[in-house]
């Protein structure tokens, strides 16, 4: 049966290729050998870039770093990079060429040298019944084995699950399970949000309830209505004071402007009255003090004048006589009793000194009496002023009570200076009780508002509760669906795995990497709500299973990776590609595994064009011999990349000749 095959790949200014190099791919086995860095992987990348238009694995490698250079364009030759691919089916020939850079490239296509209008569609169709996206997916999933990618898939059970799902057409099953998980998570998040809202509403509701209770307690909801209270209040007023006809009965009386003005006037009058009363008392005291002070002042002044006149002369005479005193009189010369005279003179001198002191005291008394007199006169003046102010206050009150919007009506006898103090007290007390009454009215209004708010909040809480209950039920259903979907996907995938196991064994058994863990399986696991496939190897004699990631060597793990990759690729059904590209599949393998791989390739080449790269020369020679054509119509090409310069790799191409095999055995007679 005819099969689509790749015929050549031409690279220019692409990755490790500078000058144009055309690589012949028109064989059923193409071996590309080269040392590390010789350009093998550039060839594989060229094929991926041409078909997919990107090299995601390279972009991922520098993810998070500042972009400094184009990963596609050759550093020595510069943009644009160019890759051309030949594809053949019998005598039909297609050519596809992509030029550009990693971020922007253009694809062109020719069929039997005729340019095609829709190159991407033509490319997809050239390999089967693919869309562009399907072709890209197929190439990345089972068309090209990049050892690191497959190993990474092994290490991440989710990635292996994804690969397997694609191969057996179960993407939609796992997508549904993922969508069910998302729906469940979204609902759970919504439930958390609603719970928080309900919690806030309940808190507000409880707070409003507490406010209402307090307001009700303060306001005393059982008391009489406001008007009645106002009347009760007015009834306590003394005779001659009453509510005016305009004020009585008004619910707003308590907060009327008139009440405020009255209160202000009353406070003013009360202040004036208190000041007048104080000044009056002070003035009365002062009147007595003035009389006493005036008498005292006169007496003090007289006394002071007398002592001031006498005292200094007596003192001077007594002092001089004492100095001249002897037993004879200094004036007449007669003998005198000196001691008696001295005593007398000393008494006179002492008396004079006492008189001088009395004079000082008298003068001080005069000054004090004068001060008291001044104070008394000032008090009298203050009394006169306060009296005038009181009269003014009384007049203002009188005017107020005559006003049409006056709150109170007051008889004239209350409006005398003598009564105004009492009137003011009455008004102040009345105003105080009026304020209290007003406060209660305000509280009562607030209570009504609180009650409405509490009711509205209760309704909101009820609504939130109902919404939450409904959402809880939806969450439960979503969680049940999520669990059931994953469980169903698990069973479906499990069955697929059992069917796929022989395909894994096809590869694994031929390469036999381990002496005791000789069977390769794949185990389904759901980890953190995600379906995963865990690699597993099995010792059938001891019946022990193990994860090869933990017990196998690097080379043995490469066999595991190759087994899964090829096992899946060989089962790709309608999504299968006509070629398989294996980039250095035998690295780190031992000779037995490589021999097994060679035998495997002989079988795989029957249905797929094989493109193999490797760096080990010994194994390349071995594969070259093992895969040399033995039948007509087969072709094995070996490209040896035997050096690399800035212009690109040096490529030496050879081709194994068809070997003639002479049969040694005779077919048994049937």
């Amino acid at each position, binding site marked *: 049966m005819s099969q689509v095959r790749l015929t050549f790949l031409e690279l220019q200014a692409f990755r490790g290729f500078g000058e144009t190099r055309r690589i012949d791919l028109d064989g059923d086995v193409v071996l590309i050998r080269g040392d590390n860095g010789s350009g093998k992987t550039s060839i594989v990348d060229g094929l991926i870039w041409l078909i997919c238009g990107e090299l995601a694995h390279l972009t991922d490698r520098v993810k998070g770093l500042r972009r400094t250079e184009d990963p596609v364009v050759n550093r020595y030759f510069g943009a644009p990079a160019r890759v051309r691919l030949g594809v053949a089916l019998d005598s039909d020939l297609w050519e596809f060429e992509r030029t550009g850079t990693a971020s922007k490239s253009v694809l062109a296509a020719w069929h039997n040298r005729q340019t095609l209008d829709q190159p991407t569609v033509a490319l997809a169709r050239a390999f089967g019944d693919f869309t562009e996206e399907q072709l890209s997916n197929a190439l990345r999933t089972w068309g090209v084995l990049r050892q690191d990618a497959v190993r990474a898939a092994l290490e991440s059970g989710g990635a292996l699950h994804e690969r397997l799902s694609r191969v*057996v*057409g*179960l993407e*939609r*099953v796992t*997508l*549904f399970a993922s*969508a*069910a998980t*998302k*729906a469940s998570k979204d609902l759970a998040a919504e439930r958390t949000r609603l719970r928080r809202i309900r919690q806030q509403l309940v808190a507000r509701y409880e707070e409003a309830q507490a406010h209402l209770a307090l307001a009700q307690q303060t306001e005393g909801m059982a008391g009489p209505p406001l008007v009645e209270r106002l009347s009760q209040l007015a009834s306590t007023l003394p005779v001659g004071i009453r509510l005016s006809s305009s004020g009585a009965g008004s619910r707003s009386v308590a907060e009327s402007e008139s009440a405020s003005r009255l209160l202000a006037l009353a406070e003013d009058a009360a202040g004036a009255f208190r000041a007048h009363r104080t000044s009056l008392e002070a003035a009365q005291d002062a009147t007595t003090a003035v009389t006493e002070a005036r008498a005292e002042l006169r007496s003090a002044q007289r006394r002071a004048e007398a002592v001031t006149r006498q005292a200094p002369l007596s003192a001077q005479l007594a002092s001089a006589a004492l100095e001249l005193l002897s037993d004879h009189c200094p004036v007449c010369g007669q003998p005198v009793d000196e001691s008696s005279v001295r005593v007398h003179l000393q008494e006179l001198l002492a008396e004079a000194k006492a008189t001088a002191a009395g004079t000082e005291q008298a003068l001080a008394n005069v000054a004090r009496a004068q001060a008291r007199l001044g104070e008394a006169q000032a008090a009298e003046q203050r009394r006169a002023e306060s009296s005038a102010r009181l009269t003014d206050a009384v007049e203002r009150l009188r005017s107020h009570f005559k006003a049409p919007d006056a709150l109170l009506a007051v008889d004239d006898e209350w409006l005398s200076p003598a009564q105004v103090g009492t009137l003011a007290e009455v008004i102040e007390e009345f105003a105080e009780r009026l304020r209290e009454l007003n406060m209660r009215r305000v509280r009562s209004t607030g209570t009504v508002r609180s009650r409405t708010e509490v009711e509205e909040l209760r309704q909101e809480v009820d609504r939130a509760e109902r919404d939450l209950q409904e959402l809880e039920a*939806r969450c439960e*259903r*979503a969680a*049940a*669906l999520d669990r*059931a*979907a994953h*469980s*169903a*996907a698990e*069973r*479906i995938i499990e069955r*697929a795995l059992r*069917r*796929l196991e*022989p*395909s894994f*064994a*096809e590869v694994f*058994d*031929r390469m*036999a990497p381990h*002496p005791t863990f000789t069977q390769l399986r794949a185990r389904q696991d759901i980890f953190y709500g995600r379906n995963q496939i865990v690699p597993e190897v099995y010792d059938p004699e001891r019946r022990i299973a193990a994860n090869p990631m933990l017990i196998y060597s690097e080379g043995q793990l490469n066999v595991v990776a190759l087994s899964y990759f090829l096992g899946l690729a*060989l*089962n790709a*059904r309608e999504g299968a590609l006509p070629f398989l590209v294996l980039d250095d599949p035998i690295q780190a393998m031992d000779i*037995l595994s490589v*021999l*097994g791989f060679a*035998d*495997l390739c*002989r*079988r*795989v080449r*029957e*249905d797929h064009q094989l493109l193999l790269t490797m760096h080990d020369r010994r194994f390349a020679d071995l594969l070259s*011999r*093992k895969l040399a054509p*033995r*039948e007509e119509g087969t072709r094995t090409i070996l490209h040896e990349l035997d050096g690399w310069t800035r212009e690109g790799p040096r490529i030496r191409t050879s081709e194994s000749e068809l*070997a003639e*095999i*002479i*049969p*040694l*055995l*005779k*077919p*048994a007679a049937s």
Partner: protein
Amino acid sequence: MSAKRIAQLDDFSSTLSAAGYVVERGELAGQAAVLAETPYALVGCVEADISSDLVERISDAQAALTHLAARAPSPRQWDLYLVIHLLSAPQDPEEEAMVEAIEADTHYVRKFVRRTIDLEDEGSLDRALRPLLPLRPAAEFDLADPLDVLGRELREASLPEDLAARALDAFRRGEEVAVT
């Protein structure tokens, strides 16, 4: 537990013949053998017991196979295989090591040592000869519409009525899974 049914050389012959080999019963260095060939391989199958002269007997058999291939020189001389069916299993680590050493020696002939193949164990002979057999056909999946399969599975789960059906319908319409 059923008794073992150990594979005979005729069973090897049948399996290889079915796989497209030209098969002949013969002998290798005096040991009864099945010989089989394709353009890619010349195969000899012999039976043996674990014994002290096992290595020597296998060496003789591989020499005989090499001589047979040399009768018509070709690149196929690189593709000689000897399948040794051990009728008794190795009993100790020493015997295990001996078996491993035989397989590891790839000079002249690639050797596969297989231990007491029990035909009651389904596919055991195919497994033993796998490296020499063609690839088996790909697995078959009856998945015309995977969501139908999923729907059948979900019906078996005790979910509320219509929940799964509505969710699947929404998903089929390209919407997200909606749970009402």
